[in-house]
């Protein structure tokens, strides 16, 4: 059986919880072998979209095809070839590391010896070689997350869904997860991840979609999004005189934004701004290239989402 070009297609996806439309007409297409990121602030509808695609909740409207199977009608058959890393760890605290893999493999109808044959490889992947007999509550947050990722691979899936795979991890643990995810894409697996770490999306994803209020606002490669939506250079300015300087900045820079006591200048031509700033002792500034985070904040706003 040849793999279809698209691992996941969703058209016109809608889902309401009570009066609130959490997913309001989402179209998605994930090609086989790519790493696709779904970005958005809290409450944008990312997790609900993933759950709909996996057939775990029923859509109010829309059509989905996952690995060639219509969802939710044949979601169970599709999930045989899918791995899932949920947002919150749900490793079984009553079991050891290896037993967690064994018990999870059984949910796929795998035989004990087939699972046991995969365990050493999965433990190596999780960076837990030799720790098969360890209890879950003796593992660090990073180890638990890697084990959850290894557990999602027990059935050797074609596509892996990950809901915020590195939330709550320290930088070391996060980098190790990123390294493992790159290994998976090298093996040809398709990855779909949600995140609100722009750095993560920028490093890992071939393509991403930014979601807010249940809709996809834009999609493309990280570079293309930056090029399309934002000026290439940013100067961040703060200090006592920033309010007065902000008026000056407007004449030097096409787009000036204020957040708290910081001024953000987005521009293609950074020299005039830097010259202007060089003599001002009451201001400190940082000059950097525009990033995906700037795109994200421009499109979804700077207001808090709680």
């Amino acid at each position, binding site marked *: 059986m040849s793999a279809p070009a698209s691992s996941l297609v969703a058209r016109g996806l809608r889902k309401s919880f009570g009066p609130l439309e959490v997913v309001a007409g989402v179209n998605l297409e994930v090609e086989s072998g790519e790493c696709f990121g779904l970005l958005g602030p809290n409450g944008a509808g990312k997790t609900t979209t993933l759950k709909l695609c996996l057939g775990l909740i029923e859509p109010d409207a829309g059509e989905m095809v996952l690995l060639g199977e219509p969802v939710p009608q044949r979601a169970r058959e599709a999930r045989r070839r899918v791995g899932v890393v949920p947002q919150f760890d749900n490793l079984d605290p*009553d079991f050891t590391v290896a037993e967690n893999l064994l*018990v999870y493999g059984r949910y796929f109808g795998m035989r004990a010896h087939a699972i046991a044959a995969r365990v050493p490889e999965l433990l190596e992947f999780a960076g837990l070689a030799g720790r098969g007999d360890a209890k879950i509550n003796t593992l660090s947050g990073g180890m638990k997350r890697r084990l959850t990722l290894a557990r999602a691979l027990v059935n050797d899936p074609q596509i892996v869904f990950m809901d915020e795979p590195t939330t709550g991890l320290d930088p070391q643990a996060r980098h190790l997860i990123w390294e493992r995810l790159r290994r998976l894409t090298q093996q040809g697996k398709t990855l779909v991840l949600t995140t609100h770490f722009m750095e993560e999306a920028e490093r890992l994803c071939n393509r991403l979609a930014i979601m807010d209020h249940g809709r996809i606002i834009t999609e493309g490669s990280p570079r293309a999004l930056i090029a399309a939506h934002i000026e290439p250079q940013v100067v961040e300015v703060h200090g006592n005189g920033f309010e007065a300087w902000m008026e000056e900045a407007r004449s030097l820079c096409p787009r000036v934004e204020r957040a708290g006591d910081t001024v953000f200048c987005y521009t293609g031509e950074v020299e005039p701004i830097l010259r202007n700033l060089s003599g001002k002792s009451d201001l400190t500034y940082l000059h950097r290239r525009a990033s995906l985070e700037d795109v994200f904040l421009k499109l979804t706003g700077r207001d808090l989402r709680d």
Partner: protein
Amino acid sequence: MIKSRLLAPPGVSLRWTAVWRRNWLVWRRLAIPSILGNLADPLIMLFGLGYGLGAMIGNLQGASYFAFLAAGFVATSSMYAATFESLFSAYSRMQVQRTWEGIVNAPMTLDDVLTGEWAWAASKALAAGGCMLIVVAALGYADVLSAISALPVVLLLGLAFSGLGLSINALANGYDFFSYYMTLVLTPMMMLSGVFFPIEQMPGAVQAAAKALPLYHGVAIVRPLLAGESAPGLALHAGVLAAYAILGFYAAAVLTRRRLLK
């Protein structure tokens, strides 16, 4: 959720055995303390009341009070084992540990999970009632064949109370919620079901109400069986228990889907 899917009968597949085996793997290690814990409470009650009160009461319905009470406690221990498992333990796996969420990410459905939990809680009820039967037979209050013949009833009671328990679980917003069910439903049921005393001495209306309760029908079969007699009205009693089991499980499926799949 589409109404027809919400109300559909639970889908049957053998996938549920993976859920049963997961719970078995956890329990296997804690089996001995768990069995002792399950047995201690009814045994203390049985010995205390059976010998203490029994000395004052003497014989009841042609048998010793201890034998009378023992039959009631076989049924009751099944009820409580199924209830604890389908309330507190199932709630931990559903809500606190998110075990069910992990399972349905695999090619498992919520119906598979519920069937596994239902069968598991009933298995624990069978184990608890079975242990009581061993004690009762060892003390000479029932012969071995009679005790074995009561096992299917113990299992049926387990399925009935597991189905009810899983329904309550689907409505719960915390562990405290279960104490209402335990104290307002199960404790009165124990008093009205002929566990401690025959219900024939109670007013007609109370007797009629008692006959709607699953525990009453369990006791009504177990007691004559343990005395080595045939149980009068066996088909009716077993039918009521089976109806509770099936309807309870169906209600659990609908309520849990409403809670988790909406």
